[in-house]
Structure formats: C-alpha cells, structure tokens
C-alpha cells in the first residue's frame, strides 16, 4: 500500500524542482506584471490600486496606432523572411557545385552578434558615408546623400530590411531541412512524367514543406513581434515615433520613464497577443500530430 502511494507521487516529486523554478522565473513575474498593471506603480515607494485606469489611458492615447504599426512591421518582416528563406533553401538544396560552401555562407547574419550587425547596417544607412546612399548616387537614383533613418517611411523600411537580414538564415536552414526530408523519388517520378521545375515546386515541394513553413511563420511572428534590439539601436523608435512598436513603447514607458504600472499594462497586452499566437501554434502542431497519427493507421 505504501509502495503504491510512493510510486504514484514519485513522478510529481521529480517534477517539483522544475515546477518551483518555473513558478519563480515565469509565473511570479507574470503575476506581478498583471498586478502592477492595475496600480500606479512608479518611482515612489508606495503604489495605489487604479483598476482599469492604465488600460483606459493606453487606448485613449496613441497606443492603438502603435499596435497597428507593430502588426504591419511584423507582417512585412515575416513575409519577406519566409519568401527569401524559401528561395534561399531552394537554391541551397539544388545540386550545384560548392553547395556546402554556400550553406556556410548563409550563416553570418545569424552568427554575427545582433548588436554588431545592426551597427553595421546603421552605417550603411548613413547618407554621408553609407554604402547604400553612395551606390544610389552613382546609379543616379539619389541627387545627393540620402539619410534612410531620417524619415518615417524609409526608417520603417530600413528596420524591416535589417530584421529580415538577421532572421532569414534560421528560416532558410529550417526549410532546407524540411526540403531534404522529401524523398527524391517523388521529384524523379514527376520529372520522368515531364513535370517542369516550377510545376514540381508547386505540386511536390511546397505542399510537403507547408507544415514547416506554417511552424516557422508562427515562431518567426512571435520573435519578430518582440524584436527590440534592432529598432532600438537603429532609431530608438523614431523619427517622430515612425518605428515605435509595442515592445519599444513598453520599454520607454516602464524603464526610461519609470512608469511601471502603465508599462505593465502594455506588457500584459503583448502577453495576450503572443499567447494568441502560441495557442494557434500549438493548435497547428496538435493537428499535424493527429494527422500524422491518422496517416500511420
């Protein structure tokens, strides 16, 4: 009887350290963030319960505009990463001489520390000394030096391009692995039947890597939504708020301006958005798993 009880609880006891750790480093800060979002916590030692005031303040200000900008930024960044990633994976999967070398070549944006990579991009965007403005002038695209980070639209695009540069290698490698899992027999059979490259891509490659594309799109959306360092180093959210996304706005409010309560309310909204992404991701995974299990039967 005693042994049976011990056997029953033993697995839970093994889980206890991990559970305690999770409570301390995930659950408690999350709970605290939710609690703070209903207070006027700031630099002062005491804090008062303010109910929904922080949330009302958020939605009466320009935060809805910031939310919209965040989604537009994420949409373009993730879409470009997926398009370039698929194209890159196709090229790296092709039977060309020196393929291994090209596979290594795709890694630097991922391997270089993000801050250094972003600083390099910052210089490239400089109008006086930057390569892009210089080449643009040589080709007659610009009349004189053009500062990409000085205008809202071009700064917005510049931050997306940098994010795509940093995020694409992971997408490429992930999709390359998915492509390599496709049996060559399928392509050979289609080729024998007279199918062209584009037809084979549409009818064989794309459908078979679609679960990987979906998974990577979702994961990339979560990472991109939370992307802070690229925008902060390049523009700090400027000019005139043109690159201020939710995470930048939250940082400025909570850390730079010490408005912990208002910052926490913003953070809670980010958590809710990301939870929705994560829920969809787990739904897709479970559907894919069920589909796989059904196919096995």
């Amino acid at each position, binding site marked *: 009887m005693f042994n049976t009880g011990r056997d029953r609880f033993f697995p839970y006891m093994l889980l206890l350290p991990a559970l305690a750790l999770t409570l301390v480093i995930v659950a408690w800060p999350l709970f605290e963030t939710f609690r703070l979002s209903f207070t006027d916590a700031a*630099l002062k*030692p005491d804090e008062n319960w303010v109910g929904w005031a922080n949330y009302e303040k958020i939605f009466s200000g320009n935060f809805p505009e910031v939310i919209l900008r965040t989604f537009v930024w994420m949409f373009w960044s993730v879409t470009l990463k997926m398009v370039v990633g698929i194209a890159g994976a196709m090229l790296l999967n092709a039977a060309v001489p020196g393929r291994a070398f090209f596979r290594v070549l795709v890694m630097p944006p991922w391997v270089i520390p993000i801050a250094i990579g972003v600083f390099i991009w910052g210089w490239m*965007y400089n109008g*006086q000394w930057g390569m892009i403005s210089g080449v643009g002038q040589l080709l007659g695209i610009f009349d004189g030096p*053009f500062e990409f*980070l000085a205008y809202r639209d071009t700064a917005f695009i510049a931050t997306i391009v940098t994010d795509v540069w940093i995020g694409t290698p992971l997408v490429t490698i992930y999709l390359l692995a998915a492509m390599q899992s496709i049996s060559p027999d399928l392509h050979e059979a289609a080729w024998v039947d007279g199918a062209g490259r584009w037809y084979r891509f549409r009818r064989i490659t794309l459908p078979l890597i679609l679960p990987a594309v979906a998974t990577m799109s979702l994961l990339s959306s979560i990472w991109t939504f939370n992307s802070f360092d690229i925008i902060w180093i390049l523009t700090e959210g400027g*000019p*005139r708020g043109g690159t201020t996304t939710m995470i930048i706005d939250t940082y400025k409010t909570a850390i730079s301006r*010490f408005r912990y309560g208002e910052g926490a309310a913003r953070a809670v909204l980010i958590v809710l958005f990301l939870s929705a992404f994560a829920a969809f991701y787990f739904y897709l995974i479970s559907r894919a798993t069920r589909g796989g299990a059904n196919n096995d039967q």
Partner: protein
Amino acid sequence: MKALKYLVGAALLVGSSTSALAQTEIYMINCGDGVTGNGPAKHAELIAEWEAANEGYTVNLEYVPWGQCQEKSTTLAAAGNPPALAYMGSRTLKQLALNDLIIPMDLSAEEVAAYAPPVLGTVTYDGQAWGAPVAFSTKALYWNKDLFEAAGLDPETPPTTWEELYDMAKQVQDNTDANGFGLAAASFDNTMHQFLNFVYSNGGAVINDAGEIVFDSENNVQALEFYGRLAEVSQPGPLAYDRAKLRPLFTEGQIAMFISGPWERGLVGDVNWGVAPVPHGPMGDHGTLLITDSLAVFKGSGVEEQARSLAKWLTNAENQMAYDLAAGNTPIYSGTGTEELIAADATWAPFLEIIPDGGPEPFVTDYVGLQDTINEAIQGVVLGEIDAATAVADAAAVLEDYK
C-alpha cells in the same frame, strides 16, 4: 600545542574579520569607465583622503557605463536597495526628490555663495539644492575659418545673430561643396539640448521659477521656426543626426558651423576653427544651455550623513576645481581659476563668460517625457509636417503633465 595554534589562528581570523566588518561601507555609483582621462584618478585620490579623515567608513566606488549608470541607480533606489551616493544628471533631481528617493544637500550659506547662481539653479527645487554639481558644460558655436574664406566670408568674423547665422550658412552652402550648418534632430536628448540653446538665446524658457510651464511663448515659436529654417542650410536628413554625429562632419569639412561644448576643442582635429557665443535671436541676447551632473545622496542607505559629507568633500571649491582641471571639464566654480584658464587659452572664453546668461535644463517630474515631447515638436517642424506655433502650443499642453 598544535590545537592551541589552531585556536589562536582562528581567533586572529575572527578578530580581523570583525575589524573588517567594523568598516561601514558607502556604496557609490559613478558614470564612466573609470580609466579614461585623469578625472577618475583625481576622484580616487580625493576619496582616499576622505576615508583617512573618516575612520570606520570605506567607499565602495563602482563605475558604470554612461548608458546605464543613472538607470541603475534609480532602479536600485526604486527597489529599496539604493546606492548611498550616485552620479546623476541634475535634470532628474526633481523627479527623484518628489518620489522621496533622495535627500537635500543642506548647503551652508557659504557653500551656496561659492556657486554662480545659474549653476545652483540646475540643482535647486523648492528652495533646496538636491545635488552637488560635479560636472558642468556650456555650449558655443564652432566655425570653420577655411570654409568661410572659400565662401567669400571674413574667416575671423562669426555670426552674432540668427539672421547672420542663416545668411552665412547659406553663403557657404551656395559657394562651396559643404553644408552651412550642422543640425541635430535625432530622437536623442541632445536634440532638445541643441534647441534649448536657441530658446535661451531668444529670451525663452520652458518652465519658470514658480514651476509653471511657459513653453508656449513667442520667443519659443521664433526659436523653433528658426531651428526648422536651419534645415535648409544644413546637412541632409538632420533627423538622422545627434550632436555627436556632427563632429565627424565638421572635421571632414562637410559642415561650416555647429554648436557644441568645450570638449570639441581637442577633438575637431586639423580644422582651422574658431569658437563664439551662440548667435542670438530677435527677442534675446547670447545665451546657452547650462547642463550640470550632480552627486545625489539616496535615502535609505543608512549612511546618508556620511554620503553627504563625501559629496561635499568631492565638490568643494578647491577639490572640484582640481577635478575639473584634471578631467578637462568646464570649471563649475568661477573665480581666479577660470580667469587663469581664459588667459592661458582664449577659446575657453565663449564657454565661461556666458554662464551668467545661461538657462538650466528644465526641472520637471518626467524628464524623458519632456524630452520626447520637445523632440517630437522639433522633428515635426524640421520635416515641415507642422508649423512652429502649433508644435509649440501642442507641446506646451503635453508638458503640463510633467511640471
């Protein structure tokens, strides 16, 4: 016998550690890397002297990089674990005082009299000085004499008014490959600082002594209008430039003029340069933004009195002057020291003689909020998206929340 030796050894060890524990620590956070220039060595020397005179207290001085030092001190204080003494931008003192995180410096009448009133104004709120000024800067206009000559201007005559500044910058722009002026308009604190030089050179202000927002004034509208107009004769894309990024343009001969602090004198390289007071606007006289950083005593460390004593020791007239000279800073205390400085190097004059006419960084409860609001107005006008009068009025309305 062997056991006795161990016992004696253990007793000595306990004794020595007890004696070490008897030393009360004063945790001090300073900004910088702690090695650049002669300033850190001078501070170390002064701290050692204070420790020798205050038996039982030891100073644990930590240098934290500029980007993080103030944020670290404030966050530690907000979390209830403050440093005893910390290097803070004086602009933050009101916010810290209102949140009960720091204590006043309790300056004596003699100590108050030693400071030039505008310098003391940078740390004073509600009749109390909340920090001891430890670093100080004023701004002036640098001009490139060779570019002036190439543009057909007298290389020895800098502009004294805004109109002259614009006209000379335009003449350089029209007659050379360089731009006339270096304009900072990035989303950064010194964009607001650059603009405030023009505000104070046109009789304007952001907040008055009574703590009222007075930003919405004709003086400030003119200053913002002129700042936006300068974009016509400045380097392309000023919103991509903070003040530090203008120096390379000046040293490369790509801009003929820019406004900065005395440290540029040693950094502008081979340029044939001159330096003059910031040109004044139609409603004012030459002015400048006075920026001080201070040593602030945080509440709750348990050694507040000793921290205050240390702050006063480091910043008294004699020690502060020695530190300023070692670090190459603008001297905080005026007097014979500064006169000697000007006599030895006349390029100090525009930075030191302007002090009585300078204005402080606005003392508000949310400095970053103030900075973002004013920068937003500047950027809007520089981009031509909003007119100066509307931008000033909008900003003034927002600033009411930060006074």
